[in-house]
């Protein structure tokens, strides 16, 4: 019996030693918690790959001021409990900054643990929580393009503009998750103020088998425009169902990362996507750079999925370049508060942060759709600015 206990105890201590995280060697250590597997991975894996590829290139070219950037990637599967463990690991490893590219379920864990340890947190893939918006929380930053209120502030006037004076019978589509429903409610309010007819509003469950009944409801309500601010599966599921029903209205939805790929796949003229990143159809030099790097580093997703993550990586790169000593949190924070990152035309304008605004001072939107006449994706509306107050 005594032997059993000794065996058990030694095994236990051995396990403890094995699991203890070791701080790395590099001067610049960044921790990234992403939903690499799990139901949300389709949305966040490309962002993880973008970061991985971007910084692999930076390190191959010598790093920043001769220091390689050590990235610690962890998979939180979109779960809050896992995210909490991961942040504790990061704290033990003494990272300078924590990046989150995961579902909103992970936010609370990352926010509370990061703030307790006084490590800045950057949200780079999922929707921004309220902390980075003015008045900003000192430790929380966000580079993600979409924002609950500002997106609708752009979208509703856009719909009005596109309708060219005709009456708009608007339908709203959200996913049955709180953030999406809130986003749609904001849009609804703005639409009412703009004098549009709200014909239908729905929140659709996450694991819907068949979007047809939802689409029929929209069609029968007589909507000529539909605005969707939801997860991509919902947005495209309803759109395709509407298409299969022969609906001829216009559909405007957020350009999540699969958007360009889908526009190219569907080749339909009535699907409008609006977003904050320039699509590959514009063929900018920065896009060519992504293509080259992605090929070399073995990304599994098509390059069109990587723009959001790439732009976030650019922001991080600029931050690290601007700060002489990232491992000193007060220095890093004060440097981040002065960020003005050149986005290489991938976004409508530079990302500028200040002490009170960790989202950006201005946010820019662009609208694309497929044009079957031209056989490619065209820009429907050039960069439009929305001020963030």
């Amino acid at each position, binding site marked *: 019996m005594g032997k059993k206990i000794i065996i058990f105890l030694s095994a236990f201590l051995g396990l403890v030693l094995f699991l203890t995280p070791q701080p790395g060697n590099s001067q610049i250590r960044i921790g990234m918690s992403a939903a690499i597997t799990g139901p949300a991975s389709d949305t966040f894996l490309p962002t993880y790959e973008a970061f991985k590829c971007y910084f692999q290139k930076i390190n191959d070219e010598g790093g920043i001021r001769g220091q390689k950037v050590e990235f610690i990637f962890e998979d939180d599967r979109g779960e809050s409990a896992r995210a909490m463990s991961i942040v504790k690991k990061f704290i033990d490893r003494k990272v300078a900054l924590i990046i989150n590219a995961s579902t909103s379920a992970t936010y609370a864990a990352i926010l509370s643990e990061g703030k307790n340890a006084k490590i800045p947190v950057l949200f780079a893939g999922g929707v921004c929580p309220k902390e980075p918006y003015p008045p900003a929380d000192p430790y929380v930053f966000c580079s993600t393009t979409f924002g609950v209120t500002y997106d609708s502030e752009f979208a509703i006037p856009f719909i009005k503009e596109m309708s060219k004076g005709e009456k708009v019978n608007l339908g709203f589509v959200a996913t049955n998750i709180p953030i999406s429903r809130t986003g749609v409610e904001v849009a609804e309010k703005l639409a009412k103020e703009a004098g549009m007819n709200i014909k239908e509003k729905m929140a659709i469950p996450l694991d819907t088998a068949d979007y047809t009944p939802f689409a*029929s409801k929209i069609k029968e309500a007589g909507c000529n425009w539909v605005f969707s601010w939801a997860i991509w599966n919902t947005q495209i599921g309803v759109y395709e169902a509407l298409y299969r029903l022969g609906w001829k209205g216009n559909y405007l939805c957020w350009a999540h990362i699969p958007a360009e790929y889908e526009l190219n796949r569907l080749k339909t003229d009535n699907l409008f996507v609006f977003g904050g990143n320039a699509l590959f159809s514009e063929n900018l030099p920065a896009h060519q750079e992504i293509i080259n790097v992605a090929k070399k580093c073995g990304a599994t*997703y098509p390059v069109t999925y990587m723009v959001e993550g790439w732009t976030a990586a650019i922001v991080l790169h600029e931050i690290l370049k601007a700060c002489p000593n990232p491992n000193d949190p007060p220095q890093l924070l004060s440097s981040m508060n002065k960020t003005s990152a050149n986005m290489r035309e991938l976004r409508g304008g530079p990302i500028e942060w200040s002490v009170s605004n960790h989202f950006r001072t201005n946010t820019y939107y662009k609208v694309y759709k497929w044009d079957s006449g031209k056989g490619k994706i065209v820009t429907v509306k050039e960069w439009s600015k929305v001020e963030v107050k």
Partner: protein
Amino acid sequence: MQTLASILVLTALYSLFGIGYVIIYRASRLLNLAHGEMMMLGGYFFFTLATSFPMLSYLIIPITLVICALLGILIYRLSIKPMAGHPIFAAVLVTIGLGILIRGISILLWTSRTRYPLTVVGIKNEPIQMLPGVVLSTFDILTLIGAGAVFLAFFLFIKFTKFGIQMRAAAEKPLLAALRGIDYNWVFAVSWGLATFTGSFAGILYASNVRLDPTIAILGLKAFSVAVVGGLDSFRGVFPGAAMVATGEILAIFYISPLMSDIAPFVLLLIMLLIRPWGLFGTKEELERV
């Protein structure tokens, strides 16, 4: 009218799902909780074959079905047959474990990206005006025809072929069937093959009509209600069960709230379990035997 058409198509899809559960329940007396994953595999095999042999077009579907059927037999041999003496719940847990395993392997092989098999094959899924006010897509129609064909074929098979009769015998009284020289292990193996056959057909149809990614396996759970409502051991009950669940779901979307559609199948399931656990057409005594 459109609502009715939508209900019909959803019923057809759910029936294809549901019959797989019934077949396996009759054979092995357990719930195959990995059915959703097998359905998903059907979609993935279709996708892979389509990517490698796009010229074969519609022919890929029967090929995929055959492969999946064989896979079903393999799964039976490797993981269900060894559980023969163990409690039923343990076998059900094995299927749960299998489900996780299959899903993990799918992610390994095909990543979590959403796939669209039809794009690869080059088939377009266009809306077709059927009657005034009713529009269905190509694959909606295929679902209806496919489900109908499968059911008809199955009905004839079970009722009139020798093997079909053997299946019925083995399902009712395995021991007696064995005494009469029926190799019930082989019968069960084929049952699993048939279940994967129908399930993967549903998977192919769904993957073509909607999308293909690792999360669609969750539909298998919704399709449970179909089997329970109709009667876990009743073939006759599959269609009425599917009809009830599909109707419930769609009516909930229209008249209560779209959110309710998520739990409508489960509410129906619970109601059925409380008032009539053996379903519409199931055998009452099944309840005690479990």
